[in-house]
């Protein structure tokens, strides 16, 4: 097991490097840079920025150099000093802007993941065991619809419904007074009050897909001979169900877990923009539109890393659940 984790960890570093390169490459794609845009904004206000000033500004932020050089400078500062560059828009260092947002994103994504588990696993099992029952049809239909609903549309619809019920506009993840405030009990309570709509919105697609995976896997597993073995041994039906097929059906589910987590992070971006959550989504959106390159690159990189951690977690969980993967590495370890 230790060997497996070590082996898996070896992949983390190249993956992180690759993520940072992708993130940085994306923000260099648009023609022009922040300086051009800034000049355009000034021009609109009737202020003229000459080429000399532009060059000075570029030099100041290192924007005049080729992008690989910019990348190396940025990443080495990031790794060595925790300095992710300067946010032009916010006129603050990137590192000051992102942490609160990132932690909210992480909290929201993780809570959504747990929410989907708690809801989907029992339903999936129930649907498989009572297949073609009325409840199964109900959940299957709901699952299909859940997968077909675009996140943002669901968010809008929920906003509309809460508006119709309460007459108030729902939105945000924290009340304004708690933004950038230290984490107090009050802030947590406030978070809990707001978090359910985004969880519901983000969790729907994931829940639907988990129900479908578990149901399909379990239906496959129920036909396997070891289920017969267990029943033939006189293990009570419910116990045999949980110990063998359900446990076996968990494997493909766990290996598909990272996809769901990545999808949640991914969907969070858009839902946050629609619902006006104070997470990374709107910040990234704003940064990309304004070509606030360092901020955007840092955010994309951290979202990628969050996704990678999810993948790592699901791989380790899978190895922990499945002796075949575990033993493969111990045996290789002995051989090598």
């Amino acid at each position: 097991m230790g060997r497996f984790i070590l082996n898996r960890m070896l992949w983390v570093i190249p993956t992180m490097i690759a993520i940072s390169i992708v993130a940085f490459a994306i923000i260099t794609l648009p023609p022009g840079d922040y300086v051009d845009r800034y000049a355009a904004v000034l021009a609109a206000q009737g202020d003229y920025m000459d080429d000399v000033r532009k060059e000075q500004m570029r030099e100041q932020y290192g924007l005049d150099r080729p992008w690989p050089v910019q990348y190396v400078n940025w990443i080495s500062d990031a790794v060595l000093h925790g300095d992710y560059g300067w946010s032009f828009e916010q006129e603050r260092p990137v590192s000051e802007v992102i942490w609160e947002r990132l932690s909210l994103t992480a909290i929201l994504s993780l809570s959504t993941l747990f929410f989907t588990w708690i809801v989907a696993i029992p339903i999936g099992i129930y649907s498989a065991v009572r297949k073609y029952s009325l409840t199964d049809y109900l959940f299957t239909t709901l699952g299909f619809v859940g997968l077909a609903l675009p996140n943002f549309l669901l968010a809008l619809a929920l906003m509309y419904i809460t508006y119709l019920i309460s007459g108030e506009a729902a939105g945000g993840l924290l009340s304004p007074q708690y933004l950038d405030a230290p984490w107090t009990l009050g802030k947590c309570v406030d978070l809990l009050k707001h978090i359910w709509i985004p969880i519901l919105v983000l969790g729907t697609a994931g829940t639907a897909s988990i129900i479908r995976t578990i149901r399909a896997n379990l239906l496959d597993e129920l036909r396997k001979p070891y289920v017969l073995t267990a029943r033939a041994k006189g293990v009570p039906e419910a116990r045999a169900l949980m110990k063998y097929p359900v446990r076996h059906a968990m494997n493909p589910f766990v290996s598909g877990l990272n996809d769901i987590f990545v999808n949640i992070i991914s969907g969070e971006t858009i839902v946050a923009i629609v619902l006006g959550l104070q997470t990374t989504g709107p910040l990234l959106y704003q940064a990309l539109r304004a070509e606030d390159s360092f901020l955007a690159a840092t955010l994309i990189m951290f979202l990628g890393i969050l996704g990678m951690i999810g993948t790592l977690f699901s791989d380790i969980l899978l190895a922990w659940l499945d002796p075949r993967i575990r033993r493969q590495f111990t045996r290789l370890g002995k051989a090598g």
Partner: protein
Amino acid sequence: MTDTTATAAMQPTQIERRSQSALIWKRFKRHKLGLIGLWVTLFIYLCTLFVEILAPQGATAYSTKHAYYPPQRIHFFTENGSFKPHVLGYKVKFDYDTGSRSFIPDPRKVIALGFWVKGDKYKWLGLIPGDRHLFGPIKPREKMFLVGADRLGRDVLSRTIYASRISMTIGLAGVALSLVLGIAIGGLSGYMGGFTDQIIQRFIEFLQSLPSIPLWIGLAAAIPAETPPLETYFLISIVLSVLGWTGLARVVRGRFLALKEEDFIRAATLDGCSTSRILFRHMLPNFTSHIIAVVTLAIPGMILAETALSYLGIGLRAPVVSWGVLLQEIQNIRSMATAPWLFFPGLIVVIAVLALNFLGDGLRDAADPHEH
């Protein structure tokens, strides 16, 4: 021949004649939801061909006095009981206290409806000029809003119909691109095996572990706002396929590896078939059904992504009409509260995506009765 073979030469009374495709079709037909999905999908794609004729109004026709006009109900009989399909115009009342308007059906404003009526001029598929519409007010100057109008008094129904052409095909375009990439890279991976395969697999895993929407937003934001609509359309489909090919590549590789080990491929080799004949005659026909299923299941993802990007204003932009662009009209609680019918394009998105998912599921089950 000797009598051994003669006695063994059974005369099977009924040796089935059906081909493999016929068997797949037979299995598919048992999948009721899949069949529904098939018909709905076909219907929607058929509609995209005839949007100009189907839509009662032009895509850009506006009328400020009809701003936020609510949906009208079709009445089939007049008050005196004679058959005459019509809708009623609204009387607009201003509430000066709240500043809101209310619409009351006005029995005197009867707008008679008919088939194949004259209306806004169009060029069908951009080629053939015409002004006939399948259905609409008989008098060309009158307007009908079956699902209401937006803030500029544009007909939501007509615009939704127009938008289907862009939204449904951008999914196809994105999937087509992904398919080319997926078959090329997945095929390479499966064919080469060994180190190349390992590298490609790691790369795919890496791409799949990235959150797609932030990347899509990043890539889409790189498309300058002033890019012409057609170019944006293709750029967006490229953006979608940049991440979309990975799933297809995996399927292609998996099928490829599985087929490579089949005895009938060995038999074909021994029959003297060239590599290309093995690929195109023996391998490809045996995984087309899988590919069709996977492709069908990939289209909805693309449609949803386009809708989301366009909604955010970084995908397709007006004057292009796509479902995402239409949904941009709902930007805040106010617009929702005033005109909930603006959700209508969203409903159509859900129906289209559902239909494609049902179809894809049915196809997958039919192509592979043993796998899920």
